[in-house]
């Protein structure tokens, strides 16, 4: 049988899914053990116990200086920034996307502008963002908004234009005006797409968040990573990366669930 036609069985699929993870853990374990026998204080590839200890300290012991539980205060700071940034970006993306997608008179000025703006790498204009929005929370949230909103808007514009023209004609023959058209025909379809696009943009949003926190901050997951990097504390950095990945995965999973719950038709009509 040709390779392209071979399907893994049910058990095989699990095995193949876990294989890379197991291999990675194995390789890491061997390399870490080798370095630790060489130098018990090695910080580059800490062992599991070192990482567990470091995390226990971050999560359950109050910090000597601030009296806060660092893991939780970092997580809260980052999630608030991320939530605000994504929320504002989603709203802006929806407004601009629908406006440009449905109304040709608005599309003419908006569409080219959004195309250009979405090409500007947000990190490259960071010094300007500082001056305009300051160094505080606002600039970190704005970095996420500027990075995510134009792409959401362009995607939603495209999806709005893909809605069959017949639907618009039909709605208009039934007496819909522009406003009801947007509300009853376009929005229900685009909201589902918005959730899908948000899921795809989560990775970028985290990237912008971590970058913003690396530059100037007093708390946050990215801040902590860049701070402890100063003394190569990989026993904190690696679990933080795992934690960020878990949070991102949970957000992705949550958005998917929300989409299924609100728009059961969106994934091929399954309920």
């Amino acid at each position, binding site marked *: 049988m040709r390779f392209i036609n071979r399907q893994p069985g049910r058990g095989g699929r699990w095995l193949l899914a876990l294989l890379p993870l197991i291999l990675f853990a194995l390789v890491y374990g061997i390399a870490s053990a080798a370095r630790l026998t060489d130098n*018990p204080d090695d910080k580059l590839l800490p062992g599991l116990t070192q990482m567990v200890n470091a995390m226990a300290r971050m999560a359950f012991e109050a910090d000597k200086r601030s009296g806060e539980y660092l893991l939780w205060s970092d997580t809260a700071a980052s999630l608030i920034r991320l939530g605000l940034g994504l929320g504002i970006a989603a709203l802006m993306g929806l407004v601009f996307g629908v406006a440009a997608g449905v109304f040709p008179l608005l599309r003419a000025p908006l569409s080219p502008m959004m195309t250009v703006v979405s090409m500007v790498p947000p990190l490259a204009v960071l010094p300007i963002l500082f001056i305009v929005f300051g160094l505080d929370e606002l600039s970190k949230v704005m970095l996420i908004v500027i990075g995510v909103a134009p792409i959401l808007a362009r995607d939603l514009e495209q999806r709005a234009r893909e809605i069959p023209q017949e639907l618009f004609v039909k709605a208009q023959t039934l007496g819909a005006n522009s406003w009801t058209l947007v509300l009853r025909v376009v929005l229900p379809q685009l909201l589902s797409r918005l959730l899908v696009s948000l899921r795809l943009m989560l990775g970028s949003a985290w990237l912008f968040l971590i970058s913003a926190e690396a530059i100037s*901050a*007093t708390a946050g997951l990215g801040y902590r990573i860049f*701070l402890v990097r100063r003394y190569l504390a990989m026993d904190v950095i690696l679990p933080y990366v795992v934690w960020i990945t878990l949070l991102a995965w949970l957000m992705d999973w949550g958005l998917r669930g929300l989409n299924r719950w609100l728009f059961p038709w969106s994934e091929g009509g399954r309920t």
Partner: protein
Amino acid sequence: MNLRRLFGVSVLGLAALLGLSAHAAPKKTFDVCWTIYAGWMPWDYAQASGIVSKWAKKYGIEIKVTQLNDYVESINQYTAGKFDGCTMTNMDALTIPAAGGVDSTALIVGDYSSGNDGIVLKGAGKTVKDLKGLDVNLVELSVSHYLLARGLQSAGLSEKDVKVVNTSDADIVAAFATSQVKAAVAWNPQLSEIKAAPGTSLVFDSSKIPGEILDLMVVNTQTLKDNPAFGKALTGAWYEVMALMKAKNAAALTHMAKASGTDLPGYEAQLKTTAMYYTAADASKFTTSAELPAIMKRVSQFSFEKGLLGDGAKSADAIGVAFPGGKVNGNAKNVKLRFDATYMQQAAEGKL
């Protein structure tokens, strides 16, 4: 990907990761790294002019000098074993490689910061006391943080009186231009940019704590022990360049100025706030002085209070620091940072 291929790739990955654990052994080629800073520019000239390879050849070895762009990353790379030596400050040598269990030797004490690090406040005629209650932007846990602590101490304040905002060194100039930032701590060349803004006061700088922020060439102790030629060649090359600088050799200084992104007057201005040890005799005199252990004690204490010595550290004495003449600060069973004047003395006596 079929299974055999997958296996092959995994083995390659494993080999690559294992390659990270390098053992010291007699060898012929050595890698050292450095980053842009007034007191380290001589390494660039030493490499470009062929002085390094000349000295390496004399001892039958090869030395590659590499410039890295990110200071912390360069120390991390050295700590991970990618380089045999690297330029860093005394505090970073203690908190990164030494705290990471990499036994390191300060082969060359190049200079100390004498104004290259400073605390700047917005507004004319300010003093250290005006820091009270302010947000202070700086690279947290760096020598800037140490300088702030010393500055606050000089005015009877402590870190509780200010709020430290971690700001990367690459962005601190742009950050200082925004209206929220009222105070910042930075090192040159960024410091000179910040100071140059109108209506600012330099309230404290490293010239008030002479000798506390040292700029070193740090090498792996085991590598040095196995290969004295490496230490001799590096030290020889360094003091050949120092002699040129002392003699105000225009070609050498212009080269260093260009490489640090400024012109000759700009570089000379930075050198004014850098107390270079132009002669090996001066450097080894300082290294063997009673002053150095006292300074390192203070640096260890600060590092311990900030948690920079690692989890295992129960006190500021957790990591031993050895000095010429057998004196040891802290735990003598766990010496991870050594100040060694042997090679500087050989250079001073013309024995290299």
